């Protein structure tokens, strides 16, 4: 059964990431396009029944009109109904960052449809959440990649070579564990230049959060390496004259895989959260690029907090991702036994 739950969570995560990766297709508009006449537009409602109560197979919506002399009070003008179209041509974008495309999942010809409302500049909130997910997820994944690479490298060196190297690296690791890492993030970010392009800022965030978390995976990997390197099959291989590199690659690294995978599933959501924290506090990705963190940043204002509930929605977007990753992590933790048996059967020392 554990294998099936593992696949189930993997599929869920793949679908979620697929939606975000293809944000250009699912988002109806460009995330930075401002509509200055419609700030803080509330989420529009899709209708299936018109005012006479007739059912329409194609959903439609009523455009919202600003109330007289109001800043953010809108009313539906029920006299016009605009049908929703699927697979429409709209703003151009690059699917997965490569394929130039103009097709969007849905849209309307005469008016903008904002299913999740708009922000202070009239930018479509749904598009911003989807595009913002690209930044936050990629930062989380790359950050976790950097951390795991560092952690594995340091853990293996410490565990395999032991002696003073082990002592030194593990004391440094303990130092890192003892540090309050959120404040370390702030300090690191504050040292770096302020005025950077969005891409540089993104890479900075990835590197900063990647550098902070290596200590825990390094200790776990070291533990595994320490026990594996004394196992009979490793000693036998060493007795046959296997080189360090061969031993590490063939016998020791495969044994650390399950630990690293579990760590990855735990670290990715943690690092997504770290990116959000940095961006929330204005130290991450700069405007006008969106990320889940800077989408939430407007909630620091009391007036936004009490007036526009749809500004909370980016916080909900992360919940399925977190559930997916935590489900994956727990199913991975149940797996190691099976993993080892499979491993032993497939590899038969002769």
């Amino acid at each position: 059964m554990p294998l099936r739950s593992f696949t189930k969570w993997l599929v869920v995560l793949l679908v979620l990431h697929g939606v975000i990766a293809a944000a250009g297709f699912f988002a109806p508009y460009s995330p930075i396009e401002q509509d200055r006449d419609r700030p803080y537009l509330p989420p529009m409602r899709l209708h299936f029944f018109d005012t006479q109560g007739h059912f329409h197979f194609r959903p439609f919506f009523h455009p919202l009109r600003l109330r007289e002399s109001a800043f953010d009070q809108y009313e539906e003008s029920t006299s016009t109904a605009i049908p929703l179209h699927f697979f429409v041509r709209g703003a151009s974008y690059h699917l997965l960052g490569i394929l130039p495309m103009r097709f969007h999942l849905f849209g309307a010809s005469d008016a903008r449809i904002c299913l999740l409302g708009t922000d202070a500049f009239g930018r479509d909130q749904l598009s911003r959440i989807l595009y913002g997910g690209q930044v936050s997820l990629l930062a989380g994944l790359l950050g976790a990649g950097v951390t795991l690479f560092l952690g594995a490298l340091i853990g293996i060196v410490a565990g395999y070579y032991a002696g003073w190297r082990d002592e030194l690296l593990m004391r440094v690791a303990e130092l890192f564990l003892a540090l309050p890492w959120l404040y370390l993030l702030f300090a690191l970010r504050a040292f770096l230049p302020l005025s950077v392009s969005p891409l540089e800022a993104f890479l900075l965030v990835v590197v900063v959060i990647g550098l902070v978390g290596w200590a825990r995976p390094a200790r776990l990997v070291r533990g595994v390496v320490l026990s594996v390197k004394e196992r009979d099959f490793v000693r036998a291989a060493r007795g046959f004259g296997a080189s360090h590199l061969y031993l590490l690659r063939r016998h020791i690294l495969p044994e650390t895989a399950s630990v690293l995978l579990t760590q990855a599933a735990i670290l990715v959501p943690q690092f997504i959260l770290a990116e959000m924290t940095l961006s929330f506090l204005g130290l991450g990705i700069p405007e006008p690029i969106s990320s889940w963190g800077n989408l939430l940043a407007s909630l620091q204002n009391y007036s936004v907090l009490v007036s526009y509930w749809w500004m909370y929605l980016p916080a909900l977007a992360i919940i399925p991702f977190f559930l997916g990753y935590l489900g994956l992590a727990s199913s991975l933790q149940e797996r190691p036994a099976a993993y080892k048996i499979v491993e032993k059967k497939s590899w038969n020392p002769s």
Partner: protein
Amino acid sequence: MIKTRPSSRPFLFPACLIFVCASIFSLHSNASPHRQQGQSNEELAVLPGEIGRSGGRLVVALRDEPKTLNPLTAADSPSREVIAAMQSDLIHINRATQLTEPGLAKSWKISPDGLRYTLTLRKGLRFSDGHPLDADDVLFTFRVNLDEKLHAAQRDLLTVGGKPITVRKIDAQTLVFQLAKPDGVEERLFDGIAILPRHLLEKPYEEGKLGQLWAPSTPPKEWAGLGPFRLKGYVPGQKLVLERNPYYWKTDARGNRLPYLNELDFLFVPSADAQVLRFQSGETDLITRLSAENFSVLLRQQRGSTMVDAGPGLEFNFLFFNLNDLGDKSSPEMARKQKWFRDVKFRQAVSAAIDRQAIVRLVYQGRGTALWAPVTPGDRRWVDASIPHPPRSLERARALLKEANFSWSSSSNGDPTLLDSDGKPVEFSVLSSSSNADRTKMATLIQDDLKQLGMHVQIVPIEFRSLVDRLTQTMQYDACVQGLASFDTDPNSDLNVWLSSGGIHLWNPSQAHPATPWEAEIDRLMEKQLSTPGYQQRKKLYDRVQEILAENQPMIFLASPDILVGAKSTLANIHPAVLEPYLLWNVEQLYFRNGAEAPSR
């Protein structure tokens, strides 16, 4: 926000003063037998307006703890706000009419050459501890204000034509002030100079301790003033409590001695959002300096309170470029950028491309005014109505850039990129203060506006102190969105912004010589208006300054927010002014209807 003049004008005074001699006053003195009456030898000021009922406690939130109650050393705005309720000046600028009116001096005369001012004090006035006021207190006040060792904030205001004003006593009620050169501001000079009690301060002054005197924790017995309220107590980190000054020198039209309120409490509430919450919960009775967002929240949700949009204030917000001569510190990249910034056509093009109406609508929710010059419509006396208000025009911006030898690259997708004469793309960053959401929003709108010209702008919100450091010390920035707010409507309160030698001449501060001909011209005009008496002549000179600024765009003026205030509906005599202190300027006349004062806590 940078305040232009840390020294200025903290004083209050009522809307319109009518003077009556003691005999007329005595006709009214029977109207309210329960109140303390003026004695027949007192020359009190009588205020017109609604007659209030006495009693009650007014609770007001303050952004920060006042650092001092000493008018000589107060530089921060919480200190000035508190001192304004505790002290009085000789001649006062009425915050509502923006004109001068008699204060402790009942009348004044200016000699025809503009060099000699003769002031006559009111008779029979007393400090809040009962000690009588006379001309010696005024002499003492000006002596300490002009003492170089004390570094009083008002010292440079009292130095006219390079020489300090000299004061002479004629008799117990009459003083003569002698100036070295005529002063353009005339009697407005005296606003904000709090008259100090000589009987308490002379000894510490001679011992050299006056500068450290009157911290907020001073025992009330060692403090005295001439304002409507006097010190009662101070709880560090929480509040400052003032009580009614029984010797205050103003009455209402029925002869009741002001102020009406028994107690005035200043609570220390640091953040704007926390102040809104305190006001919503009824803990404070009035609120000023509201952002447009918080104002509309209160307008929607708050029952039992009156919310007032008092119209445009004096704050002006602007975008400016780094025009400093960086010398050795300049990198080739910075030199390339400064070549664009120094081109007046580039600045005019940026100005033409900015959608000011969108700033007013999206940042201030329509509660603000678009600006093309530094003087806002809130400054009724000095605004130059002839400055053109061209609407946003990308065509004009493009034409200006073409004239300045900029060109556009034809890119395959999206907007073309603007290239300078060397074929390099035009990219720069705009700093804004991370604690000011309004200005960061403005920067985001400007970023989108300029993208349509092909400029790539990055917004860098940074912490306010490091922002100021970059603007005035290291000069490490490309452009910045900032705001300034004067305390007075008079052009002299902005001298250090417009003079090229000024410390907050932001685009190129503290120059030894004016860098451009038009800055030299502004210097000349500002110096000239300093010593030109008469409003009409000065107005002509200052209008020219505004026109030069509007044409050369060293600052691209954006918008000015309205003064937004609120008060409990039970609080009466509320007349919001666009000058600080917006609601407390007539604190002596505020009162609670129907005994609905704040419950004691």
